[in-house]
């Protein structure tokens, strides 16, 4: 297929339609509104439905209904709207229903601003709603990945019968890049478990309520087993020049693009630096980080949030290697030079200590 110059937010919708999604419920919010606008345009053209809900609370509950009825469905929002969806996401996960949610992150907390940030990490990756559940979280770093990971999101949602979030920031949502879209797949038939208005489907029970403690415990264990399976099978990360890396940078989304430039510049200065870019934020690439920690003498996490990703990297590395942190928030994105200066500052004491050891 020919490459098409496409805006990140629009790529999500085109890819969703190609993946057989015909149902979009949303509510406008900057910087995610273009997703709803594109869906309003393309969904009816593809024989699907678009509805501007009265709020994000309504939108996610429309997905709850749509998913139960067995269609591929999607919504999109940003920080404050995702907060409002959390209750619904918990119900969808509890009832084991597939859906795709795009979060184009903006600055927070509260009203914050509409500049790009990664402050939704905790509320999305940790499952910001109530109860024992997880959402699978995919983090694109380009418009191409906005398309590719949206398609993957639908497949994973179906396979695991669980909500999947495409977590991007305002930059990737707004930028334009050439994209090669995958071939279209026909909308899949409603799964056997769905409510279909037929005699055969009459017995299908979709619920998140288990009044008996033993029943709920069994249900939570079942969900857990699914998550363990996803942790074994679905982890995705990009390792960039990590083979010989003594310092490993960790960052996702727009930050990873800056970090690739940092890797090149640092290497030009003689530092053996590499990058690990998580593509799935849940399941988290902990194994890969552990593997890298055998050689690495330092990790530097760079994020547009206040150490939220850092917590997961430290959990993965389990104290074997120091994990440093550099953050910018409020809508600021660090330049490669800025990160390089930080890197130098942190690497020098390490190098000096090393000299003492060898000396």
């Amino acid at each position: 297929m020919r490459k098409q110059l496409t805006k990140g937010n629009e790529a999500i919708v085109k890819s969703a339609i190609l993946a057989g999604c015909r149902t979009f419920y949303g509510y406008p919010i900057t910087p995610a509104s273009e997703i709803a606008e594109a869906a309003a345009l393309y969904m009816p053209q593809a024989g699907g439905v678009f509805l501007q809900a009265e709020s994000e609370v309504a939108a996610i509950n429309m997905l709850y209904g749509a998913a139960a009825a067995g269609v591929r469905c999607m919504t999109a929002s940003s920080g404050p709207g995702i907060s409002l969806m959390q209750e619904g996401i918990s119900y969808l996960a509890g009832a084991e229903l597939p859906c795709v949610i795009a979060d184009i992150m903006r600055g927070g907390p509260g009203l914050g601003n509409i500049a790009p940030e990664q402050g939704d990490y905790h509320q999305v990756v940790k499952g910001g709603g109530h109860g024992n559940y997880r959402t699978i979280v995919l983090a694109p770093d380009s418009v191409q990945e906005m398309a590719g990971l949206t398609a993957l999101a639908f497949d994973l949602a179906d396979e695991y019968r669980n909500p999947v979030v495409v977590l991007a920031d305002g930059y990737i949502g707004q930028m334009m890049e050439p994209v090669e879209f995958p071939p279209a797949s026909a909308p899949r038939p409603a799964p056997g478990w769905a409510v279909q208005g037929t005699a055969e489907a009459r017995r299908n029970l979709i619920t998140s309520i288990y009044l008996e403690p033993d029943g709920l415990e069994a249900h939570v264990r079942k969900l857990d087993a699914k998550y363990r399976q996803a942790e074994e099978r679905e982890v995705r990360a990009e390792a960039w020049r990590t083979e010989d890396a003594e310092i490993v940078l960790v960052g996702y989304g727009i930050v990873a693009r800056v970090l690739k430039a940092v890797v090149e510049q640092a290497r030009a200065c003689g530092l053996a630096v590499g990058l690990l870019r998580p593509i799935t934020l849940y399941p988290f690439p902990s194994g890969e980080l552990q593997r890298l920690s055998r050689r690495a003498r330092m990790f530097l996490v760079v994020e547009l949030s206040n150490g939220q990703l850092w917590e997961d990297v430290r959990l993965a590395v389990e104290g074997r290697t120091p994990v440093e942190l550099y953050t910018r928030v409020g809508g600021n994105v660090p330049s490669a030079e800025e990160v390089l200066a930080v890197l130098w500052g942190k690497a020098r004491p390490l190098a000096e200590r090393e000299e003492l050891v060898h000396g």
Partner: protein
Amino acid sequence: MSTTVTPPPKKLNRIGLEITNYKGSKTTLCAGCGHNAISERIIECFYELGVQPWNVAKFSGIGCSSKSPAYFLGLSHGFNGVHGRMPSVATGAMLANRTIFGIGATGDGDTASIGLGQFMHLLRRNLPFIYIIEDNGVYGLTKGQFSATADLGSKLKTGVINDLPPFDCCALALQCGATFVARSFSGDKRQLQTILKAAIAHNGLSVLDVISPCTTFNDHEGSTKSYSYIKEHDELLNEIDFVPFYEDIAVEIAEGEVKEVEMHDGSKLRIKKLGRNYDPTNKFDALRAIDEANQKGEVLTGVFYVDTNKPNFMDLLNLDDAPLATMPESKVRPCRDVLDQVMEELR
């Protein structure tokens, strides 16, 4: 020869303030936006009636309209809340300090979409509060999607036609318990001023639905909330006049022509019938008038309803006159008997 130029004396209101004391910061809204005109009317009315600005708290949600409190009453307190939740924020703040004079400026998206639940519960409670909907039929701030007050058949700039019926916020307000309900147009200076002044004098919940065109996203041919559409379809329900309590003007009133409503503070609202047989203290008349106008595609403006008798929310809750926020410990500490009784019940 030297000449001295004496500047004209500054005009002071009844509490000794100039109009500049009621202004806010410079607007950042689009030129010609209806919301700017509403801010100006608020400035004039609060100045003219001599309301103490530092006694006022301005509340808003999120939207262009909700930004507007920054552009009026700069000496007052402001609370820019959460999208659609301003009624709850205002309720919380005003119950904490009942001496606050509360005014809310919000949009049709904030009110009739995401915040409809909060709005309807505010209506039930008759909180002494002025709730202004700066109604343009679209979400201005997020670039012009239809809101739930967009009329059936209204067209967006993109050509999209609205195929759902609108909520009429005045009809909702009437049904759910607001005690002063009016509609105006940001372009009708005199009517909006009069309605605002009456709302300031009203001791209960005032809902003002002010049609306020969005010049950037909803002022084109085919829109039913554009300046030209409203000018063509504006139908006056009544002619109104407001006489503040501190002015003693006796006017001859022709029997049956004009209804005079005495407000809580002694001000008078004079409502003159225009053609229709209409009583602004009768809710059913008001609902019928709104419905008939909507059927005919008219934009009916004026005072729909006034009820000066219903107790307000503070009275229903038996709140003390002293604000909860600053109540001295001596007043909130339970007396010995009450404490003993509590202990007894726990035994």
